[in-house]
């Protein structure tokens, strides 16, 4: 089976067959031993790595030597399915910007109709006694503002909508 993997902007192709495992076409010698549910010991060409892994929506969250990797993975079958769907991904359509954690909306910094650039602060959310800026994940126009200052907002609730 072939796997297509992305992390930190790099792409990899891994193939696993009963004969062995290749990384970008190069054969690697690999020894995998799980330690409990979330911890793994890997020996890759004798190099030892200890990793903690959890499943995420699109792959795995992996920590090695204190460094986190968000790894997205598709197998051949999934890749075909996803290619078909990719037009539907909201890279330019409507996008709800949601509260990443529960907290208090201290201030909303945009109004409907505002043009925003990627990473521009949209609102200030107070949690754990600190103010946190909620930023735009991509450029767009604010079509709706759902949150108001002083509101206690739950995780995942929309703050505003970009178009």
């Amino acid at each position: 089976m072939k796997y297509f993997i992305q992390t930190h902007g790099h792409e990899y192709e891994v193939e696993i067959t009963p004969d062995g495992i290749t990384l970008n076409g190069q054969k690697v010698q690999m020894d995998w031993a799980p330690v409990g549910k979330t911890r793994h010991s890997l020996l890759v060409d004798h190099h030892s790595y200890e990793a903690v892994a959890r499943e995420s929506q699109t792959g795995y969250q992996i920590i090695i030597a204190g460094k986190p990797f968000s790894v997205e993975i598709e197998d051949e079958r999934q890749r075909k399915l996803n290619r078909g769907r990719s037009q539907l991904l909201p890279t330019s359509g409507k996008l709800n910007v949601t509260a990443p954690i529960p907290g208090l909306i201290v201030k909303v910094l945009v109004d409907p109709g505002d043009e925003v650039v990627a990473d521009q602060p949209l609102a200030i959310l107070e949690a754990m006694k600190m103010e946190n800026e909620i930023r735009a994940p991509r450029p767009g126009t604010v079509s709706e503002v759902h949150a108001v200052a002083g509101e206690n907002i739950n995780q995942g609730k929309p703050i505003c909508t970009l178009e």
Partner: protein
Amino acid sequence: MFKKVLVANRGEIAIRVLRACEERGLQTVAVYSDADRTALHVRYADEAYHIGPAPSRESYLRIDRIIEVAKQAGVDAIHPGYGFLAENADFAQACVDAGLIFIGPPPEAIRLMGNKVAARKTMIAAGVPVVPGTEEGLADEEALRRAEEIGYPLLIKAAAGGGGKGMRAVHSAEEMRSALAAARREAMGAFGDDTIYLEKLLRNARHVEIQILADQHGHVIYLGERECSIQRRHQKLVEEAPSVAVTPELRARMGATAVAAAQATGYTNAGTVEFLLDKDKNFYFLEMNTRLQVEHPVTEMVTGIDIVKEQLAIANGRPLRYKQEDIRIQGWAIECRITAEDPYSHFLPSSGKIIALKEPTGPGVRVESSLYSGMEVSLYYDPMVAKVIVWGETRAQAILRMRRALSEYQIAGIQSSIPLHIQIMESSQFMWGTLDTTFLEERFHPEDTPLPPEYEEAAVLLAAVLAHERGRQNAVLQRPQKRESSLWRWAGRGGRWSL
């Protein structure tokens, strides 16, 4: 001699204090909110009492409930830790009024130092140099006018403040109005008081502080300095002792100044005098923290003195066991504050259940932690969940040891500041020690430290293997036959899982 102590706090500092009490043979009492029934401090103490719902206003800040528990449990003394009620003069007074020993300075000293204007006046009178600035309680228009006199850049600070809350740096007149609004809003939220004042912002200055101990018999000593310039949003992230910027001569001068500051306020117990130290080795009084500090362990590691045990002895009325000449600084210590925040996502607080945990240990490593496997990290309290402290014979050895310790630290289930700390320890600027309070935000660029590609490849390979195994298991579940043997199974006497 008191026998039973209530610790009016939670998290790592509650455990720190409980351990010191236990090692002194004292009985201990913990208090807890709804969110903390299974917290380590509750499990650690001899006794534990519930004091209210999760929000700290309804539990850890409830002076009445805590005094009530103290009476019910029959304690002799209360240790406030840091944060919560530690610098609340009313709480210290309530303890005294209830016939309890408050393990900290007298209420008057807390009140005096908590009032920034009064503290400033007292320091000036005692000959302690202070940063140019204004009194408290400026209206916005007045603040704008006074800002022109002081000159930019400057700091807006909350009068009731501490911990960087309600503090804003302002670099030009244009930013002033929005910064004032933000500072007041944050100060009101954190302290219920939006009174502010202005202070000149010293460029390229270091935050260097002096730990002092003062007994009830008029003896005051200093335990050397701590360098705390690695800050983000005025929150300290990394501290060390000693400071590369402090010579023995400067240490003696800063130490003597800190002792004078303490004596001018009738101070007793442990305290910290914070200074800004500029490039020309001029130092200015910032504020005095009338309590134990988060970063006290680095001083303990280089002096061999247990500050919390000294707090207990002082509160018991004992004279100091050390003279100034007994204090020797040996080696180097560094602390990293581990917070439940995502350094890759604008430091958003992170909550969740700890599903895997391995804390570092071994030579020269000390961990002060509130974490346990299965713990729910909530958003109710401060995001600092643990501290790693290392000691080394030299600063270089301490940095290398900290890297080693951080790479051993595994926390799964929440995001933490560990990756940021690793990058700081690997940055050449930090290694050279050319620090100031703007280092982290202005001159430290985590993206300059690339992740080693082999780690990335290992992560990629692990992901492939896990996905493959999951796919195989699903396939097996769909077929109604005996579970097929895994490719990865124990491969006989070679005893290795391998393809």
